[in-house]
């Protein structure tokens, strides 16, 4: 018998009707007719293909992947709401799921009734729901609204109630789909804190999000799904780095390069030696071609992915009529720890742009890894700071 909180999913396959609207008898009849004539193969679309995951109790795992990659389907199968087409799933213990905003929330009932209903759906005795009731109301900041029908709640309130209920009724496994986006920043932070608290109590957390920073801050491990297959599964940093790089690849292809100003060359090199190193000088070289004279501002940025840049630098620039300009930027101390990064370039006017903000090159930095902080905190910090410590008794 596996301990509570274990998730074992082996060889999962899931398919959907390519055209799910066939529900009337008439459509079915015509379908059967076509089928008998040997035409009309039924259209299926694979949502998951041979997915294997094993998650131990107390582990936190982030699911990442582009839209339609199968994240939500996998989560629904783990929540036992959906059944796989092939393979096996075993989720041991009680599952609290927050799938789609307003999970487990019934609009006609009041907040109070919803909390009780959801608790009973999870299979909890009434006494236990009653004992956690105040905590949930306080966490969700509902106050007087508990006795109002949920359909009159704002979407933020519904989300808070849903999360509060799922997170406070002590599940062994917490499944959270992209929901934090609705809450305000303060609430997002409290959700993340709550998830961490649950992790430290031994709850297994499976977390789906497009916000890679929050995935990084909660999860130790990440699973990257692409086209219904597991692309990569491992420590969160490695998987996210690979995922970011793949995203970069996509955005590189879409980068628009036929405006007034064109980027001819972009390069980041070490000022001395051939490897870029943490805390050592680096040179950025850009070559821009313009078709008409203009005065603007060139911006360069550095990021780990399409997310917000780690730092930005900018400088005024004059572009000639039909010619090329070379710009150099010398960075004295590169503040990046070891890893792969992207150089972003754009040329802007006071209003409007001459060259759209786009990833132009990637580069690797050699150097020390960042010090790892306590779970969920250290990974959010991307900057390397040179420091020395002295610790002694006093």
């Amino acid at each position: 018998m596996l301990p509570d909180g274990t998730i074992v999913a082996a060889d999962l396959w899931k398919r959907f009707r390519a055209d799910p609207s066939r529900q009337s008898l008439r459509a079915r009849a015509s379908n059967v007719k076509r089928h008998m004539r040997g035409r009309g193969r039924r259209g299926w679309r694979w949502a998951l293909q041979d997915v294997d995951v094993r998650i131990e109790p107390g582990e936190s795992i982030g699911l990442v992947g582009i839209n339609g990659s199968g994240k939500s389907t996998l989560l629904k199968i783990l929540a036992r709401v959906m059944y796989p087409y092939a393979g096996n799933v075993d989720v041991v213990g009680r599952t609290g799921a927050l799938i789609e905003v307003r999970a487990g929330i019934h609009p006609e009932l009041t907040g109070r009734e919803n909390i009780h209903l959801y608790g009973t759906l999870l299979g909890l005795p009434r006494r236990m729901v009653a004992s956690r009731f105040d905590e949930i109301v306080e966490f969700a900041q509902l106050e007087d609204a508990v006795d109002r029908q949920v359909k009159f709640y704002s979407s933020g309130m519904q989300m808070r109630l849903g999360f509060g209920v799922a997170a406070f009724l002590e599940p062994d496994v917490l499944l959270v789909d992209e929901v934090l986006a609705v809450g305000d920043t303060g609430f997002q932070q409290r959700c993340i804190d709550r998830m961490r608290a649950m992790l430290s109590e031994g709850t297994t957390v499976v977390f789906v999000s497009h916000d890679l920073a929050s995935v990084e801050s909660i999860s130790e491990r990440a699973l990257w799904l692409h086209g219904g297959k597991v692309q990569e599964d491992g420590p969160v940093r490695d998987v996210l780095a690979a995922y970011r790089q793949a995203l970069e690849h996509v955005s590189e292809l879409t980068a628009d390069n036929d405006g007034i100003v064109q980027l001819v060359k972009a390069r980041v090199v070490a000022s001395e030696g051939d490897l870029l190193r943490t805390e050592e000088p680096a040179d950025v070289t850009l070559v821009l071609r313009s078709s008409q004279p203009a005065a603007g501002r060139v911006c360069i940025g550095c990021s780990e992915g399409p997310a917000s840049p780690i730092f930005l630098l900018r400088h005024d620039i004059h572009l000639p009529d039909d010619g090329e300009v070379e710009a150099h930027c010398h960075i004295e101390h590169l503040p990046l720890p070891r890893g792969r990064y992207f150089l972003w370039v754009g040329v802007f006017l006071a209003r409007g742009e001459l060259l759209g903000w786009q990833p132009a090159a990637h580069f690797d930095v050699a150097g020390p890894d960042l010090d790892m902080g306590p779970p969920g905190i250290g990974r959010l910090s991307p900057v390397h700071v040179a420091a020395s410590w002295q610790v002694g008794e006093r």
Partner: protein
Amino acid sequence: MEAVEGPPAELLFHRPVRPIVMLRELWSRRELILVLVERELRARYKQTRIGFAWALVTPFVMMVVFTVFFKRVADVKTFGIPYPLYSYVGLLAWTFFSGALSKGAVSITQNLTLLNKVYCPREVFPISSVATAGVDTLIATVILGVLFVVYWFAPAATSYWVPLLFLVQLAFTVGLTMFLAGLIVYVRDIRQVLPMLLQLGLFATPVGYGLEVIPESWWPVYSALNPLAPIIDGYRRCVLFGLPPRLDLVAIAAVSSAVILVAGYLSFKRMETGFADVA
């Protein structure tokens, strides 16, 4: 993603149908059924003026209509029993059946959004609809009491047969409700047809008239196809006439109901695996 081979056949997911495990799980969720019944009753009667009295209105109006139609126009034989009392016993049983079926059959489709988010054994929804109809019927029994007083008629001592008859009726009702609840998720058209079928069923069942209207040689087949017929006949015989039910017909109905219950439950569990896919 076309031309994907798909998984090897031996990996295909087959949900094991183990009745004992399923019943045990259902039993562990009995509290959930209570909460759902309470929710349903609350939601239905909370915002109405006369509240629970609504459960009395439908069977009462039906009785009045039946009295005018069957008694005055068709002159149904009641063997000395006042017609309102005679028909109301049948209507009470019918109210339970049709109330359970009409609510239970759509219980899954109505709760799909909820079902898409939380796991629970899905049969709690149709079962709680049946239980809700049971509460309504219990309330409607008040009118039966009033009729007994009005006509100064005491229920016969043989009424002890009622629980057994009800058990057969319950099996039939639960089985049929579960089957339809699952099927409607896939074939929504049934939802439109159901009220009409229930109307027809009311006239195809001896509710407003007696079993005697049907030729006696048809009774066994009729009882197998419509188990409600010997059941309602049995209610009348034991409550009003002081006679035992026609046990041979009730036995046929019981076998037929048991088959429907088992088949309905198993087919529901089979259909259950796809509910979330069509939602």
